[in-house]
Every structure is written in C-alpha cells, then in structure tokens.
C-alpha cells in the first residue's frame, strides 16, 4: 500500500508542475509585469520610473526565464520564474500587496475557513443522504415525485438568494444571530450557526437528487432481489443492504472535496465576514493582488490533487475488488 501511495504521489508531481507552468504563463507571459504595473498604478501616475519602482519592490524586474547577466546557477535562479513560481513548491508564496507574508496569512486563515466548511460538509452529507434515502424508499409514489420536483426547484435557486435571504430573515428580522463577523474560541458558535445552516440548505437540492439516483441504481441489483426473495422486510433490505452498498459510491464521490474544505467558500465567507481563505481570495481579486491569487491557484490545485489521491485510496479501501498493484 505504501508503494501505491508513493506511486500516486509521483504521478501527481507532473500535474502540479503543469499547473505551475500554466499560472506562470497566465500571470507573466500573457501580460508583462509592465502591464500589471500600469494597471495597478492607474493612468495618472504612470511614469517609467514609477513602473520600475513598482517592479523592483515586488521583484518583477528580473528576466522571465534566463538571467544572462548572472553566471552559473544564478542564470536560472535569479529570474521571475524561479523566484515566483518554482519557490511555491517549498511553500514560499512571496508577499501580498500590503507587504504581509502570504504563506503565514494562509496558515492563519485556514482555521476559520475550516470552522465553517467542515460542519457544513458533514451536516450537508447527513441531511442529503437521509432525504435521498426517504425519497428512494417511497420511490415511484406521489411523495417521491414532489420531493424530486422540490429538489429541482431548490437547485434552481441562486446560491446568492439563500445567503441574502437567510441573512435578511434570520439576522435582520428575527434577530436570532449576528449578521456577520467572527469570534475567537467557543464564542464563535453564534457566528457559525447561520452560515453553516445556509450552506447545508443551499446544497440539499442537488445532492439529495444525486444520491437518490445512486440509491435507485442499487435498488434493481441482484442482491436486493435475492434479499426480497428470502422474505426480508423492505425496511431491513433498505437500511441494511441498500444503504451500505450505496454509501460506497456516495462516500468515495465526496472524498475529493475534503482537502478543498481548507479553501473555504468564497461567497459564504465574504457575506458573513469570516476571516478565512475564501474572503482572502475575494479581497485579493477585488484589490487585484496578483501574488495572492497566484498562490491560491497553486494551493487549490495542490489540495485538489490530494483529493484525487484520497479518492483512489478510498476506493481501494472500501472495495476489496480493487487491489493496490
């Protein structure tokens, strides 16, 4: 198994390098640092000196790939590509526009992101699976039909509506919890209730419908027919046989997003003022902070690749037919 994990990690490396090259091309080749400087400085203050100063402050004044004015290894290392892109592999993300270290900022903001994303993920999974199970149990009845219609309606509502509507109703009209903000330690629960609740509700429609189809695919399989032929009651068949087998595709399907929970949610965090990675990204986009966006792209793909590896492992763990060779 260890050998398998190592091999998967080695497969992941070229992909990560590809992502790195892609972001480098996107951020430095499509637009030159001069363009970025002009954009950041605005029209009025654009002088060649100002652009030079802007580039020097951020280390963008070096050549892109090969520094011919240096010698030896420095021809490769004293370049934008090495200093801004390659160094990401060792966790050096450079500095944001406000001068803070991006890596440290990211480490500090993962906690709040996770505090929202993890409960939302677990609760959402429980609620959706339960709902899907009930719908599948009463399959082909009026209850099932209207349940699915409700699910389709729920997934047709914009995520923005759930957030705006929820904030308005629960925080402004009923005044149950604060509209936005974040607290330290256990006090934070008051701020977490609403975003988690809204996150769960806004996800129910699509996931419940999806899980229902997984359950229904399971219902027609041979082992279920055998169980019925044995004379087992329908409830036992459902909760002991179908539920267990259907959980395999459901759980292995969601494993991929688990590492991405660290990234938080852009919308939720910015609406609720949570100081997590999602709001960090949004602020960086608004401020056109290229260094931060670049780092988030890299970290996001890193986490996604981790999710893929976890998915493969989870398949192999829950399904004995898959071997590690």
């Amino acid at each position, binding site marked *: 198994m260890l050998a398998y994990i190592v091999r998967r990690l080695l497969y992941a490396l070229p992909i990560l390098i590809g*992502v790195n090259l892609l972001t480098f091309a996107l951020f430095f080749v499509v637009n030159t640092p001069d363009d970025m400087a002009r954009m950041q400085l605005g029209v009025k203050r654009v002088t060649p000196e100002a652009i030079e100063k802007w580039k020097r402050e951020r280390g963008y004044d070096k050549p892109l790939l090969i520094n011919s004015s240096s010698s030896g290894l420095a021809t490769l290392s004293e370049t934008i590509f090495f200093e801004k892109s390659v160094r990401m592999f060792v966790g050096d993300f450079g500095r944001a526009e406000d001068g803070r270290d991006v890596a440290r900022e990211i480490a500090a903001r993962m906690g709040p992101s996770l505090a929202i994303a993890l409960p939302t993920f677990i609760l959402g999974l429980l609620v959706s699976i339960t709902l899907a199970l009930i719908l599948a149990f009463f399959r082909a009845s009026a209850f099932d039909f209207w349940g699915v219609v409700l699910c*389709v309606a729920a997934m047709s*509502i914009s995520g923005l509506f759930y957030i705006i509507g929820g904030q308005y109703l629960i925080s402004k009209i009923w005044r149950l919890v604060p509209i936005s903000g974040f607290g330290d330690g256990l006090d934070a629960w008051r701020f977490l209730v609403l975003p988690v609740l809204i996150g769960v509700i806004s996800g129910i429609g699509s996931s419940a419908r999806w899980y229902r189809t997984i359950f229904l695919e399971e219902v027609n399989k041979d082992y279920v027919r055998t169980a019925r032929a044995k004379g087992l009651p329908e409830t036992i068949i459902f909760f002991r046989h179908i539920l267990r087998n259907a959980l395999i595709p459901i759980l292995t399907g969601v494993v991929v997003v688990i590492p991405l929970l660290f990234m938080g949610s852009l919308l939720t965090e910015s609406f609720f003022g949570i100081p997590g990675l999602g709001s960090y990204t949004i602020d960086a986009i608004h401020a056109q902070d290229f260094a931060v966006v670049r780092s988030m792209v890299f970290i996001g793909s890193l986490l996604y690749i981790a999710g893929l590896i976890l998915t493969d492992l989870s398949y192999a763990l829950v399904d004995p037919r898959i071997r590690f060779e």
Partner: protein
Amino acid sequence: MMGFEIVILWSDILIWLLVAASGGLAILIAKNPPLLAAWRRVGANRVGMAAATVLLAFIVVGLLDSVHYRLQLEGKPGTQPSYAIEVLSALDAMLTPLRTRNEKTYSEPFATRLFAKESIDLPGQGSIRDYPRLKHGGKHLGENEAAVAGDVTTTALRAAALALVAWLVLAALAARRVASGGSGWQKIWRGETDFAWNAVLISVAIMLLILVPLFSLAGQYHVFGTDKVGQDVLYQILKSIRTGLIIGLVTTLVMLPVAILLGMTAGYFGGWVDDLIQYLYTVLNSIPGVLLIAAAVLMMQVIIDTHPQWFSTVAERADLRLLALCFILGITSWTGLCRLLRGETLKLRELEYIQAAQAFGVANGRIIVRHILPNLMHIVIIALVMDFSGLVLAEAVLSYVGIGVDPSMTSFGTMINNARMELGREPVVWWSLAAAFSAMFVLVLAANLFADAVRDAFDPRAA
C-alpha cells in the same frame, strides 16, 4: 424617419451562428431516425415541453435583444452622418417607453410617488418635506392617486380577457393541427396526442395570463418599481435575459469543438496522444474553477485596461468582455465533457462495426466523423442542456465576486450585486432583488426541467 446604422457585436454573430447551427442540427436530426425518435420522446414529455415553452419565450426576448443599431444624430445636411454613441437593440426599440421613462430614484412597484421624502417647493407656501410625485408612474391618473388600485384591477382584467381570447385562437389552431373537426380538442384534453400539446397549451395560457396584463400595466406604471437611478426594473430584467442566454449557450458552443475533438482523438488513437490529452485536462481540471476564472479574468482586465483604443463604444467593450468570459468559462468547463467522450469513444472503438471499417481500410478521419461522432451526439446534447442552468447561476456569482460581466452590462448578476445593499436600508428596498431572483429562478428552473426531459429521452441507461 431617422437613419440608423446596424451594429454587429461579436456576441450577436455568435448568437445567430448558434441559431443557424441549431437549424442545421434539426435537419441532421430529421435524417437520423434514432435521434429523431429521442426528440419525439422529449416532445411527449409533459414537464419537458412546458419548460421548453417557457424557455422559448426567454430565447425570443434574447434574440430580439441581439439585433443592434445606432441612431443617426441630427446634423447639417451634406455633412458626414454621425451616429449616437449609445448602441440600441430591437428590444430597446420595442420597449422605448420602459427604457426612457426614468424616475429620479427608487419607487415601489405600482407607486405614484418616490420612495424617499424630499423638499418640495410649493408656490406661495414655502417648501415642505413629502414624497414627490413620480414623473411617469401613474401619470394618466393625475391628482387622483387613490384610484391606483381600481385602475390596476380594471386594466389587468381587460388585458387578461384579451389574453384569454388570444389563447383560445392559439388553442383552436393547435386543435385543428391535431385533428380536423371537434375531436382535436378532445385528444389534446385527454393527452392522447404524441406531442404534449396539453402541457404546451397550459403553459402558454399561464404565460399569457401573466405577461399580457403585466405589459399592459407597464405602459402606465413601473410594475416592478425602479432602482437607485430611477430605471425601470422590468426593463433591466428583460435586458438581463440576453446576457444569461449568451453565458449559458455561447460558452458551451465555444468549448464543444475542443471537447469533441480532443475527447475523440484521445479515445480513438490511445497511446501517447491519449496520455497527452489526459494530462492536459487533468492539469486544467485540478485548478479549482473559480480560481482559474478569477486569474484569467484578472489578466483579461489588464489587457482591456491597457488597450482602450480597441473599443469604440462602451457596448463593444462590455460585449468583448462578455465573450472573453464565455471563453474562460468554456476553457474551465470542457474537461468534464472531454472525459465522457473519451470514455465513450474508447468503448465504441472496440465494437465490431468499427473494427470492420478498419479492416476495410477506411481512413481514421472518416471512421471518426462518420461512425463515431454520430454515436456520441446524445452525450453532447445532454451536456449542452445540462450545463446551461449551471452557467446562468454561475454568472450571478461571478458578477458578485467582481469577475463577471462588465459593470455597464445589465445582467442578473450585476442587478443582484447593485441591489444587495438595499436590504440594509430602512424601509427595505426589496423589489429589485426579488424581481432579479424570480426571473433567474424561472429561467433556471425551466432549463433544469427541460434538461431532465432531454436526458431521460437520450440517455440509453435511463430507458
């Protein structure tokens, strides 16, 4: 008669290209019995056809909004004609009253007065603070503002009666088409027709009963109120439809050729070609969508800001930005379809009829085009309709994040973004948000239901 100059925006070209492509596809389908049978199944699906009727209404509005022109400015005769900077569309021309009758600021739906108190100078009595009378809302009533409720009811009822007559005519036409004589009505009513006429007619009835009164009232009132700068919200909703349709349809159109070409190549040839293409889409896929879009849009903004000389009007800049957004969304969303097509091609390649073709020495390109592509069409069609609703919803989110369409372009996203802070006001300004969310909900719900019908009809597994 004022002169005008037709303006052809890039997105207009693409949208009419799309219309032409769907026409071509229809001819192709008519010649292909299995696909035709699948579309017949879609036509028999009641929910699907009701949704399609609603979608069609949205598409008509979007198409009307895709014929653009610029009015000629009045100048001295003999001089070179100059044209207004503002680009209008056929829809704008039809909605001229809605477009031009702007108030000063917020007003409630069906209001006759502004939403905020202002100082009003009364001749001879100094000034008082009161809600000023609207310039256009309920103007025909004059001083008799108490009559609004009665006036609205009578106008709505009269329009509803008109809608009913129009519907009866349409229904009679449909009945004659089903069967001559009185039996057509019966067949439709009992649902005995192959095509779901009853669902279509019922949804047409509902739409007529809502839309005809709405638009006849829109002549005198602001039925959905006005926004911060006094613009009619109904007008903005209608203008948003085109943006939503373009995002939902053009994006798929852009990514479709890439996904089909790469997916089929990877699946058919295998080997290092397959490895390369798989590597490409794994890399693109592993960057979380929003972040890749954000990065690409930021870079696009830099290009647009540093090259202002490329665009002669604001509309052109907004249009190009919209298209760039479609391309970026397309780049981030082709991977899923590509993987599906690769897998299916891999399966098809091993089938006997393909091996027979290979044994006969048919060229690879010909096998791919003639024998594999037609058997992938169901996946492509399902992907096309399934992606639409997600893209429309994504536009709103992206515009909120600040990486969506140009702020000068009306869209559901920009409307929601502008109206978002209004819920914090006392008293609440709710109509902009409510109208934008409702319109988007109807569009996306119709698209989702239609997509389900198409998937049920085309997916061999579902049968």
